[in-house]
């Protein structure tokens, strides 16, 4: 087991180096200099020079790359050109928002998808099965941002049940020490804020969770169909175990193995979807932040933000692989 973890950790090193080069080269390939985009059209050559000097944009490329690697290794991504705040500070504020959103979306997808897929497989060929197939087909075919707009229209604009924008009521002045609003509200036992935060989270989470929901439902269904024809299931039935126990111990437990991998693979999709969902709901997370950074040519934000997200993505996949090896002993020794 330890050897497996060490091997996976070592594989991370070339990926991270490659990523840092990719992001660095990409930033240099962007048209227009940051000085131009920030200082606007009325800038003077002196201003541009002063600006480039301040951010070290005149140094040779390898010097810039080395400085970038050195500072990145210390989790120092520099200062945002647009807001003059530390990128790390902004990540500290915005990443928890995206985390809460992604977590809520996964929770929604998992706790609805697994039972739905299971029931569909048990009633194979029946109306529930067909309905679940149809729903999951629609789920993967509807763009996240269109679903987000639809949900917003029906539940916020028309029915007025839920708020349509933001992460918390605009008039709220509650402090958020960890920036995980839900966690903060629970720690301080501020139930009114907790309710408010959850209400703001529902629509974006459903929109973002729709694709994972569709995929998890399909995989669960296929996986249960596979497993329930296995010999050990027949044996369990033949020896007279109650169906409910066979379902739980023999079928579901084995059918869940592939699902854990699928959940890990959804993280990339979630991050892509977060950019769109956060834009529709004006949700102050990493996605809407990076989108603005692209428009502002905010190099440090793009550099730090994308590297950070890719890092999170790689780490989550590592954790999924490890947990998979723990759940499934067959993987460990291959």
């Amino acid at each position, binding site marked *: 087991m330890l050897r497996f973890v060490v091997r996976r950790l070592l594989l991370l090193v*070339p*990926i991270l180096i*490659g*990523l840092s080069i*990719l992001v660095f080269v*990409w930033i240099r*390939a*962007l*048209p227009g200099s940051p000085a131009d985009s920030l200082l606007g059209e009325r800038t003077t050559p002196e201003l541009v020079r002063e600006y480039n000097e301040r951010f070290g944009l005149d140094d040779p490329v390898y010097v810039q790359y080395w400085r970038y690697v050195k500072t990145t290794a210390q989790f120092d991504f520099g200062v945002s050109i647009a807001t003059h705040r530390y990128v790390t500070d902004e990540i500290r504020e915005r990443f928890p928002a995206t985390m809460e959103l992604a977590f809520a979306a996964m929770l929604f997808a998992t706790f609805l998808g697994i039972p739905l897929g299971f029931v569909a497989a048990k009633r194979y060929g029946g109306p529930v099965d067909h309905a679940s197939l149809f729903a999951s*087909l*629609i789920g*993967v*075919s*509807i*763009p*996240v*941002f*269109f679903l987000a*707009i*639809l949900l*917003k*229209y029906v539940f916020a*604009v028309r029915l007025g049940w839920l708020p349509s924008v933001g992460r918390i009521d605009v008039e709220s002045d509650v402090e958020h020490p960890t920036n995980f609003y839900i966690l903060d509200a629970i720690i301080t036992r501020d139930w009114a804020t907790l309710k408010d935060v959850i209400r703001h989270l529902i629509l974006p989470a459903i929109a973002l969770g729709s694709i994972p929901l569709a995929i998890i439902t399909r995989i669960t269904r296929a996986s249960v*169909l596979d497993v329930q024809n296995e010999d050990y299931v027949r044996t369990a039935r033949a020896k007279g175990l109650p169906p409910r126990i066979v379902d739980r111990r023999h079928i579901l437990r084995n059918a869940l193995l592939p699902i854990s991998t699928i959940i890990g693979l959804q993280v*990339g*999709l979630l*991050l*892509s*979807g977060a*950019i*769109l969902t956060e*834009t*529709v709901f004006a949700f102050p997370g990493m996605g809407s932040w*990076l*989108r603005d950074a*692209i428009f502002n040519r905010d190099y440090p934000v793009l550099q730090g933000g*994308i590297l950070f*997200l*890719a890092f999170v*993505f*790689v780490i989550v996949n590592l954790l999924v692989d490890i947990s998979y090896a723990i759940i499934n002993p067959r993987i460990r020794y291959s």
Partner: protein
Amino acid sequence: MSVVEAEAVEVQLEAPSGLWRDAFHLLIRNPGAIVGFVFVGVFVFAAIFAPLIATHDVTEQNLPLIANGCCPGPSADHWFGVDLLGRDVFSRIVYGARVSLLIGLVSVSIGLAIGLVLGATAGYVGGIVDSSIMRVMDVMLAVPGLLLAIGIVAALGPGLKEVMIAVGLANVPVFARLVRSSILAQREADFVVAAKAVGVKHHSILFSHILPNAISPVIVTATLAMATAIIDVAGLGFLGIGLQDPDETPEWGSMLTEVNEYLQTAPFLALIPGTAIVISVLGFNLIGDGLREALDPKLRGR
């Protein structure tokens, strides 16, 4: 009838068949796939004959119509209503099909071509070539797809060609991985070993023995990738980082961008382009699923 005769009759009863012929028969009997073909057919038809179908010029503004606020809904003259600038939504949707289909086809071809070459090389050559290609693919896969496409458009600048390249490149690692794993599975197969033993040249082993047997999952993935490409293009358009000039060349995703604030008064402005995207994407997904079932003998009868 002797045993030999009986067997001869039995052999004759099995119609001559092959993977592709069987697959075709299964596909045209699959109701889902037929619906998919209809959806994609409508989409392709609209794209090809856009100038004949469109009722108005896509840039023509009917200002008196929006004088009393945004926006009048469907009417006899404007079937899908008019947008914020008084332009005919129906005509813009029809022309939008062109953009989506074109970008989808070209970008999937780019991804497929590069991915096929890289994956086939990695899988067949192996060794250091394999690991260096696949490490680069791993790095590309470590960046979420849409983010990668956004990054490429940001570097190349907005425009039709640039969006095609961006969405295409974002697809490369997917195809490269698929082709590589399917070639690895074929490389040790008996018929390949036999071909090697009798001295068949490398490239003809790759092209006439391995690739034809590795191609069916690639076809399925390419169909499904069309669906993803349409969604990605719309996503880029929605974020406002797609085409250079969405006023001249209508694009479904960017049609959804500005309607966010008009949901109260004119929800149809969001519903119509959104539905167009869903229908075309659904079409490709249905065909892809049908193809997968038809081409994978293990899934038959499921």
